[in-house]
């Protein structure tokens, strides 16, 4: 059902009635689409409060807070979360640093090889994850480099760089070069200008990229699966648990991650709205 299908041509005098129907058909459709998008999230959250009878957390048996109270009762879960956070912290910081430098070069300088640089940034994002994971494993296998913590971090930095570049670049494009020139005219050298003018202006973009990289790292399964060796991140723990029936504690952690991410996103949106309003007020 597309928009066009809802608006088959009818005589123009009935346009008012039609417009009314059309507006509401579209709204109803949008509501249904949102239900579809949010239903699995609701199910995932609800089943964190389920008290399953056997080891399968598939059918609703009754409400309990025990899973939340004893989130740590499943062997290996806590370690996997700690590992995920460590990997995400290191890889997001390194990827954000490397990606921000690339974004600065791409937006602020004209140089030979810009096109191919953009292409190289775009390629990892348009390669299936399984190929990225497999090729890294081929590298480590052939160099006889044991897979484990280091290789997970290496792979996460790799796939995060492109996303950081895109995020920071989006912020830099609307950036007013005149502000930097003004600082230089007032006697600031390049480094001072960068520190006092450029950095504060692009800081929200860098922060957004850092969040995104952290989130992508925590969520990654495929690439990690190929390069984890005997290590177990949280998604790998869920995968292993799913084979024998995932405990409700998995949903507890999933819900916690969801709430944290949602809070961070909402705060970000509110901050940006306020910033935009302030800038408008100042202009």
């Amino acid at each position, binding site marked *: 059902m597309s928009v*066009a299908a809802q608006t088959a041509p009818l005589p123009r005098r009935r346009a008012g009635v039609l417009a009314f129907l059309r507006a509401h058909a579209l709204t109803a459709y*949008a509501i249904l689409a949102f239900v579809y998008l949010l239903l699995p999230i609701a199910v*995932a959250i609800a089943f964190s409060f389920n008290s399953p009878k056997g080891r399968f957390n598939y059918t609703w048996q009754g409400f309990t807070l025990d899973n939340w109270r004893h989130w740590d009762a499943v062997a290996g879960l806590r370690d996997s979360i700690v590992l995920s956070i460590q990997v995400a912290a290191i890889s997001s910081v390194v990827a954000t640093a490397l990606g921000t430098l690339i974004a600065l070069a791409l937006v602020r300088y004209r140089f030979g090889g810009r096109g191919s640089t953009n292409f190289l940034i775009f390629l990892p994002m348009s390669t*299936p994850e399984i190929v990225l994971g497999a*090729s890294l494993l081929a590298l480590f296998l052939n160099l006889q480099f044991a897979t484990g913590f280091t290789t997970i971090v290496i792979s996460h930095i790799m796939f995060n760089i492109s996303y950081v570049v895109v995020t920071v670049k989006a912020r830099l494009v609307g950036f007013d070069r005149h502000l930097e020139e003004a600082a230089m005219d007032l006697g600031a050298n390049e480094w001072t200008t960068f520190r006092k003018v450029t950095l504060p202006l692009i800081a929200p973009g860098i922060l957004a990229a850092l969040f995104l990289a952290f989130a992508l790292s*925590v969520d990654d399964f495929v690439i990690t699966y190929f390069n984890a060796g005997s290590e177990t991140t949280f998604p790998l723990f869920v995968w292993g648990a799913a084979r024998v029936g995932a405990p409700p504690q998995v949903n507890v952690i999933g819900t916690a991650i969801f709430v944290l991410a949602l809070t961070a*996103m909402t705060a970000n949106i509110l901050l940006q709205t306020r910033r935009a309003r302030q800038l408008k007020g100042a202009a």
Partner: protein
Amino acid sequence: MAWFHRHKGLTPYLLLAPGLAWLAAFFVVPLGFLAYQSLQSGTFDFGFSFTWELYNYWDAISRYRDHLVRSFVYAGLATVIALVVSYPLAYWIAFRGGRWKNFFLLLIIAPFFVTYLIRTLAWQTILADEGTVVGVLRDLHILEPDGRLLATSTAVVAGITYNFLPFMALPLYVALEQIDPRLIEAAQDLYASRAKAFLRVTLPLSLPGVFAGTLLTFIPAAGDFINAQLLGTPNQHMIGNVIQSKFLELIDYPEAAALSFVLMAFILVGVFAYSRALGSERLTG
């Protein structure tokens, strides 16, 4: 002076160097090693050696033709369904969202905040044999009394569609949001019906979003193996499942590497053909 200019020109390269070096070492070089691996022969016990074993590719294509076809059929179906679901939704947010646009966008990406595997497991629960959805469909005689959703192609396609839908909806929204509503009004002032204004103005202007969205959905969908694993049976397994098990369970590295390249090649050819088709359509239409 000449030295100064050359020195100044170095700055962008210095900024690029660390990040691009990382991508070269851990993205480009590994692809080379994957190619190297794909041309090896041998077994895990006796070791692999490089022998220009092009036969791996022939073997990969002929033995796993069904998996390849299934991957592209499932990914294609998921992409089309995601487009049909997302387009009106993105349209509604772009033109009717008003002050709440950002909030609605947040709802679209909300699934990404739940770990991929957990939201796929949630679909397992929703589509389960004892679940409400199956019950209702059985009562309505849409499903046979012993009909199932879980462990069918329907479940796998539904899972893939759901998991990659935001990749479709976001670029569509960006493209639709950029359209100046006055253009549509102008078309209607010139006696275009609403349908015609949509077909001649809105739709063509949103094509870049359709293009980006379909690629962003199709490419990861074609390489996916999680949905087939968790929502399907071996009868629904895709090429990703084969690559994964050959690399990590069967330890048949050369064939797994060859299959990865076959997957990449098919995707590249598909993307190229698709961009040619859409590009020419945009010129003539």
